[in-house]
Every structure is written in structure tokens, then in C-alpha cells.
């Protein structure tokens, strides 16, 4: 059975969309209901900065993969899928 690798990327994008929506909801909460202080803004900045860093590292690795490849999972046991 042949599977296009890009399908996994689409599934990843679906998870990423859910993640982004939840992340925005949390940012909204801390800014809306947090106490107005330097600490609140510093922590919000920290959470956003680390999230951007994680997304950037993910992008670096994901962009190195050729997602147009098709993988044969069953029927070709000599294929180095692992």
C-alpha cells in the first residue's frame, strides 16, 4: 500500500490549528484577567517567545523533508520504512 507522505503533514497542520486556537485563548485569558503588572507582561512574552522558538525549530526540520515522496508500507518488505 502506497501512502503519500504529505498526508502526515496535513494531519500535523490540523493539530497545529487546534494548538494555535488554544494558545490564543490562553494568551487572551492572561491579558484579560491577569493583574496589570510587569510580571504578567513578562510571562506572556516568555510564553509567546518559547512557542515561536518551538515553531521555528519545527519548521527547520520539517522543511528539510521531501513531502512529495510516496511510501510503500505493505507489499515491499525490503523498503527501509524504519
Amino acid at each position, binding site marked *: 500500500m502506497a501512502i503519500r507522505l504529505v498526508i502526515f*503533514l496535513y*494531519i*500535523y497542520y490540523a493539530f497545529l490549528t487546534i494548538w494555535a486556537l488554544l494558545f490564543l485563548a490562553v494568551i487572551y*485569558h492572561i491579558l484579560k*484577567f491577569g493583574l496589570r503588572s510587569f510580571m504578567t507582561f513578562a510571562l506572556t512574552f516568555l510564553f509567546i517567545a518559547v*512557542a515561536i522558538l518551538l515553531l521555528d525549530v519545527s519548521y527547520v526540520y520539517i522543511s528539510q*523533508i521531501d513531502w512529495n515522496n510516496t511510501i510503500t508500507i505493505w507489499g515491499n518488505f525490503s523498503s*527501509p*520504512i*524504519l
Partner: protein
Amino acid sequence: MLSKYRLPNQQPGEEIVKIIRRDMFILVKKIATFLLLNILPLAFFYLALLNFPTILVGELSWPLLILGASIYYLFMWLLFFFSFIDYYLDVWIVTNKRIIDIEQKGLFSRVISEQKLYRVQDITSETNGFFPTIFAYGDVLIQTAGEKERFHFQQVPNPDAIRDMIIKLAEKNKKEEKEQGV
């Protein structure tokens, strides 16, 4: 956004005496759990690499590993953020006239209640367990004359000192209320 200089329904002459959050140890526990959940997959990955050395060059395994790791760490960060919000947005504000209880229950539920200090009838502080005793944190329960169930300050630092402080403030507030009434 809540400002300590402009409280909701602030009364004339009302000043913040103390802003209370859960004890720092609760936050440390959350951070330790987060760090452990970050390290565990690395240990698992190391073991997998020992048993399946081709995992890093596989046509399917490498892309899946990258996507899986990315999703895992992004959601771990999000969960830690959720957990932190739960800690950070639970606040008890004690002023010279009332107690304001702000509780974040999950992401989509928030309860804010307040009670006048002169209505306070009974205050109990509790320290139960090994870590609460070592790190001096616990609960403070405040029974008021109102219909609402008693206020519950959970896992706050130095519960005995907070109880004493509220008792003094409540007595002072009751005297002031009486003088104004006369």
C-alpha cells in the same frame, strides 16, 4: 485587565492590604512535572535509537518522528501554560474593607465573589500533610454571615498569619462600621 489601583466596585478609602496567590511550592511542582514530561521522551528516544539505529534515516520513521516530537513539545508547552494560568489567575485580594475571591476554573470558567470584612464570623487555618508542614502553606476558611458558602483560600503561604491579619482587619472594620452607624 485587573488593576491593583482600580479594583472592581472600589469603595472610597479602600486600600489593598494583601494580594494572595497559592504558595510558590505549587508552582515549583508544576514546573518539575513539566520538566519531567520533557525529559522522558528523550530517554525513550535514546532507547529506541539503541534498538533501531535506522530510525533517523527511515523514509517514514524520520518524518513521523519530527512531526510527533513537534506536536508533543508544542502541546506540552500549551499544557504548562494552562497549568500556569490556573495558578496565576487564582487570586485572593484582601483590602481594608472586603475580601475578593477570584478563581479560574479551567480555561472557560471563572468565579469572582466578594464579602465585606464586617460580615466575617469565623476564620480557620489548616495545614495538612508533609509538604504543607515543611513549606508552611495551607488553607484558610472564612465563614461569613452571608448566604454564600465560606471563602476558601487554597494552598496559600503562611495560613496562620493570613488568618490573624484578616481577624484584625475584620475587628477594625466592625468598629468603623459601628461608629458610622452611631
